[in-house]
């Protein structure tokens, strides 16, 4: 049995295919071949358009709600923060009370989530949400690279 001299990290069942591919004579592709392939890949997989939709759907209502809160109850926020800074400077005691509307928390959290989704869409080289599906075992959902 001939000794395998290919890549050392291949499994046994991958080596036969690697031998076949390695035996092919290397031929330089024509000039512009790579650019054409990449152009087709980008055309087939639009850049995370769905992620931008989700990000906008999450962020816009939350921003509108927070804008309404600031316009309607902005003084509550200013007074509360002033009291908090004053209490921090004097040493806050146990007699301080705190309350925040849960919808404000939810809206701020949604803006954060939308920002992360938008960042993922912006940073994805191709595909984004349409990239190779996330796999628990083997394929990384960011760029389709093999994990092991």
């Amino acid at each position: 049995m001939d000794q395998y001299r290919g890549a050392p990290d291949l499994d046994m069942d991958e080596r036969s295919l690697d031998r076949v591919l390695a035996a092919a004579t290397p031929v330089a592709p024509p000039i512009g071949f790579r650019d054409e392939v990449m152009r087709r890949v980008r055309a087939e997989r639009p850049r995370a358009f769905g992620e931008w939709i989700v990000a906008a759907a999450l962020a816009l209502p939350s921003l509108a709600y927070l804008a309404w809160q600031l316009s309607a109850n902005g003084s509550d926020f200013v007074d509360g923060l002033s009291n908090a800074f004053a209490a921090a400077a004097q040493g806050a005691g146990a007699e301080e009370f705190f309350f925040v509307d849960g919808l404000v928390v939810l809206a701020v959290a949604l803006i954060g989530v939308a920002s992360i989704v938008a960042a993922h869409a912006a940073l994805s080289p191709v595909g984004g949400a349409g990239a190779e599906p996330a796999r628990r075992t083997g394929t990384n959902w960011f760029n389709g690279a093999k994990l092991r």
Partner: protein
Amino acid sequence: MNQRDALLVLFGVVIAVGIAGLLAIGTVTAPPRGEGRPSFYFGQGRVPQSRPIEFIQRQAPEPIRPIVPFQRGVSDSARDAAGYLLVLLGVSAALVLGREPVLASYHATLGGWRTQARVFGTGLAVVLLIASSTFLLTVLLLSAVSGPPQPGRPGFDSPFALQSLFLQAGLLTVVVAVAFAGIVALIGVAAASWRLGDAILGTRFLSRLGSRVPAPLVAVIGVTLIYLLAAAPAVGPFIALLTVAYALGAVVTARLGHASEHAPALS
């Protein structure tokens, strides 16, 4: 965009529309200024009581009256879940913005019990190293700026302003170091959450479903479980410490583990 991606986008949009509806109901049923609870309050007086749900329902337009109790419940739950939302945001941000270190850390945790023990032991060593060095630095800072000056001490004969500056600079250094360790731990927690989600969805009963679950959702499942365990009354702090240790161990193993294999021996 394949069918699965379209479904995910549709799911996200439906969730977003639902939450937008709740926010809209919140604006419609908000009390007039000066009545009911304020949106944000911090002070020494007690927080004003909220208006009863029945009263809000009577004031609200007819079509949204049945949804008002649900909206109130979501609002209360969101306030209580602020910590969880923060952890979720941090892990998500680490997965997206720090994908290379997270992937490397995740890769470092793949393996059997020997690998797990190695990662965990490394993390415990890092935690103990950080704790001891932080304590010693604090002792050094405090001894330099307190008590009468004695020969041979760092604060000997230094004016008070200089001592104060030294203390502030030292504390700032500690804060920066802790923040750096926190970022490293966050990257590790993201990888550990992903790994834990892997382990859960890799069980025999869930393996068929697990292969279809996107990796970010796997990490969310993992971090949710970690958060719930860390919030348990008695064992919560212990589990949080173990999680941070494992996370730091994953990052350190990913950063130094492969390099040490190829590095020349020190002796």
